[in-house]
């Protein structure tokens, strides 16, 4: 029984996400399922980003590139080659991981803002490339052949299936995040975050550790991309590589708390919830972006550690519970 106390760091996040998955299942409401899907997607992406951003301390502004690239590759195989969605997701994840590996070898040498700038450049270069790449349909993108859904028992069935796959991917992201945080590898990443040169002196092979952190943070977004575009039915360059969504992910991680497992979950909840409220409210809908901006600014200026970091500092008893 002593053991589960140590595992609280993963139990609470898993319970939160499980609740989110069960909510539409219990209410049986399709609208709730869509809301839940959006939040799950945000959690999976933000948790993945957190491995690089929160643990390793590298600011990736263009993380959405892995989502878009994986999505494109996966959808290409599902749509044009007739592969199943399962292998499509797998291929998308592998493609994104491979891209991250190659990119990581090159750009992870850059530090601080230079790295952030390079990731913006990569996202934009990729978007412009997809615009010109005929295999991926150029500027029009790819439209999923409707008959693809037949293999999964029609569009409605396929839609509910994507929800559960999304849930599975979110759990996978959480578990990766937790294991990285508690492993020796993760300790090395945290050391890099605090002081890269000192970490190297202490025996962390920083180029390798950074590259693997980058790869780990890229795989799940690639898979989510395939799933989302499969559900969405089509993919086009602006949809696949939206720089703004990339920054929204940073906002979520920042809101919840950098470098914690629970943080990105809370951040995704809070951000999507706030956005959902602002977009639909009569009073705020015209200036919803400004209100989000003000909230973000206040958090950056006054609670830079995010919700989880703030709670941990204020209430020491929570330090065991919130990881």
């Amino acid at each position, binding site marked *: 029984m002593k053991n589960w106390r140590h595992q609280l760091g993963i139990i609470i996040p898993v319970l939160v996400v499980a609740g989110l998955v069960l909510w539409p299942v219990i209410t049986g409401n399709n609208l709730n399922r869509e809301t839940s899907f959006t939040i799950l997607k945000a959690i999976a992406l933000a948790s993945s980003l957190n491995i690089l951003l929160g643990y390793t301390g590298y600011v990736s502004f263009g993380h959405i590139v892995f989502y878009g690239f994986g999505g494109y590759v996966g959808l290409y195989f599902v749509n044009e080659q007739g592969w199943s969605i399962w292998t499509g997701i797998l291929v998308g994840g592998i493609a994104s991981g491979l891209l991250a590996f190659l990119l990581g070898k090159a750009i992870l040498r850059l530090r601080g*803002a*230079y790295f952030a700038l*390079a990731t913006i450049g990569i996202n934009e270069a990729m978007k*412009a490339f997809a615009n010109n790449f005929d295999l991926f349909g150029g500027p029009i993108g790819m439209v999923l052949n409707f008959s693809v859904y037949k293999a999964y028992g029609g569009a409605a069935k396929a839609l509910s299936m994507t929800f559960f796959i999304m849930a599975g991917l979110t759990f996978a992201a959480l578990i990766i995040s937790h294991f990285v945080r508690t492993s020796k590898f993760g300790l090395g990443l945290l050391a890099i975050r605090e002081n890269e040169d000192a970490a190297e002196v202490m025996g962390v092979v920083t180029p390798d550790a950074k590259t693997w952190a980058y790869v780990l943070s890229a795989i799940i977004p690639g898979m989510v991309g395939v799933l989302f575009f499969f559900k969405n039915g089509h993919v086009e360059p602006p949809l696949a590589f939206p720089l703004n969504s990339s920054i929204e992910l940073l906002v979520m991680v920042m809101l919840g708390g*950098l470098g914690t497992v629970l943080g990105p979950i809370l951040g995704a909840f809070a951000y999507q919830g706030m956005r959902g409220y602002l977009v639909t409210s009569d009073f705020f809908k015209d200036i919803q*972006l*400004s*209100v989000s*901006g003000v909230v973000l600014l206040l958090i950056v200026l006054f609670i*830079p550690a995010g919700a989880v970091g703030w709670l941990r500092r204020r209430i020491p008893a929570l330090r065991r519970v919130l990881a």
Partner: protein
Amino acid sequence: MQQLNLLLTSLPDGILLGFVFGLAAMGLALIWGVMNVINLSHGPIIALGMFGTFIFFIRLGIHPYLGIFLVAILGLLLGVFIYFTAVHRVINSPHLSSLMATFAVNMIIIGIGTAVFTTSPYNVDFNMGSFRLGSTTILGTRLIAALFAILFTGGLYLFLYKTRPGKYIRAVTNNRAAAELMGVPSTRILALSFGFGTMLAAVSGGLIATFFPFSILSGSGYELKSFVISVLGGLGNPIGALIGGLILGVLEGIIPSFLETSWVPVIEFALFIVILLVRPTGLFGVKR
């Protein structure tokens, strides 16, 4: 031969635009150089400059080239205001904080701008005629915009090298702690530099508005261009940014003569990444 002709027609235009883009990038590079902050509100401020020209000219009937000075003053004040509300508290924090803070400003401006102007495109109906140069036609508005860009660059250069506040700015760029010990009022200088950065962005936006249609969202494209340019010219090297702008303008003029135009951004961003990797101080950057 046909390609050479195409090159000759598109090159002068590219160069003229390059000056204006370089002016915007100069603002970004100045802020980066002085305080190590990447200003993510750069794009919306360019867009605000565009709307500045629009309002002064269409609504108030002020001549655009007179209005540009009003845009400059407002841009300077806005920058100082942004500095004290959003940037000052995070100036010594890790990069993520200042990136997020300026991005929050970006969201606020775009949100208010969308509410006021909607996202539909605007156009300043303004014409300065055109003249022929060999086989190519040059629009008067673009030539004057390029001249204004050179004027503002020259002004900035004189300010940085000949006046006391300008020397303070360069001192803070070099080493803020040492400058403070020498009695430089660093907070005021940082605010002033941020103001100059946004001023240059707003002015370039105001100039662009005289020949391109625009919306409140069109700033982001120019912001990305500014990133590329300031990396070409060396982040933190404002004068180099003008040369970076010229290089970009020339590239945009040359590439379409042997590749489809849609490949231009691919090459630009690939170049951007390569330069970041090989020479992060830029082509003309000094070692920091």
